């Protein structure tokens, strides 16, 4: 399993926050000026990561490129609806990538119903005072993931990185289904505790 480098929190965390502020500025340029250079910079940073997310779920490089294009196109089209007070850029882009990935799974299944783009907003969170708070939330989560016990870390990675369902995680780790569910609940509760302290 390829694990992201969440285990090196502090140093990378503050640079992530700076990066996010830069990205926010770029998204605003795309939204307001349809700025292609700004868009290219967003692409350079996020495209390899989004593709990493898609390939991690078992898509071929070719299929991942298709979905990646849909994700990046949605970023271009919906930049104006991004609200930095509600979510960090990477959270926003993560929800777009998730939607496009699930949409692809759906199109591959038998009952096809054509759908247009779903509104790609992250789920409504309580509106924070400033977008800086969203960076701090990410920093806190990153540190908290690094501090999780290994067994809890692995169910988080298997869910978010590999996109495995509870039953698949149970199979992979050789655990009863109930154990997987309670482990996910405990891991999530710990991470939410960190986030809760920031609200």
């Amino acid at each position, binding site marked *: 399993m390829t694990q992201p480098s*969440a285990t090196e929190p502090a140093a990378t965390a503050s640079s992530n926050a700076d990066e996010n502020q830069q990205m926010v500025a770029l998204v605003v340029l795309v939204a307001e000026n349809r700025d292609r250079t700004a868009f290219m910079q967003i692409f350079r940073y996020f495209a390899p990561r989004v593709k990493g997310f898609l390939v991690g779920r078992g898509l071929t490089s070719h299929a991942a490129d298709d979905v990646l294009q849909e994700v990046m196109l949605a970023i271009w089209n919906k930049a104006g609806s991004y609200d930095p007070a509600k979510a960090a850029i990477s959270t926003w882009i993560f929800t777009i990538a998730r939607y496009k990935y699930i949409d692809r799974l759906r199109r591959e299944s038998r009952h096809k119903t054509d759908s247009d783009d779903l509104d790609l907003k992250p789920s409504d969170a309580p509106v924070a005072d400033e977008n800086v708070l969203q960076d701090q939330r990410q920093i806190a989560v990153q540190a908290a993931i690094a501090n999780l016990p290994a067994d809890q870390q692995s169910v988080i990675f298997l869910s978010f990185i590999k996109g495995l369902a509870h039953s698949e995680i149970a199979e992979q780790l050789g655990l009863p289904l109930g154990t997987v569910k309670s482990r996910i609940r405990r891991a999530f509760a710990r991470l939410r505790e960190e986030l809760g302290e920031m609200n």
Partner: protein
Amino acid sequence: MSTAHKLQDEWLLSYAAGALNPGRSLMVASHLAYHDDLQNTVADAEVIGGTLLNAMDEAEVNDSVFDQLMSRIEKNPRPEVKPVASTSSAYPEALTEFIGSDVNSLKWHFMGPGMQQTRLWTGPNDERLWLLRARGGVMVPEHGHNGEEWTLLLKGSYSTERGTYGVGDVDSADESIVHQPKVTPDEECVCLVFAEGPVRLNSMLGRLVQPLIGV
């Protein structure tokens, strides 16, 4: 409405992670529309997703992907923002988006006296997602389940031995449960149902007609 009728956090996390199949994923997205507290939980889980995306191993992206993308954008640099589908819809936006049209314009199929269904999705492992519409007062035939079954109430209400379920509630049943929901009189009931496999009808007649009614 008690927490017993809401999906648990492990499902919300897996939904946020994009780790659910399209049927379950739509189920959770629709359920969320009724509960602000669950939306907050999902928003927290999405922060985990964003954090991990930043730390994701980078895959190689060929320049041609960007070039193709830009030529698509050149063709349509300022796409029209689609008007939000009838905001007055009584159904969750995620559901109407999935269907691509209004719930009321769907083609319904006979499923039993006072009951109709329409299939929305079938998964690779025979998972199925459908809408069920039943007249007030109808008794749904007694049935068990192969695997798990989630029923989200979109309109009206029904009762089983385990309680009464109203709009926004999820009734979650597994193999161990055989039930016979009774729709509350005087109001039509519409449900979104996800099941891991076909339901098990307990009556001989039910088993005979099952292939015909599509559940």
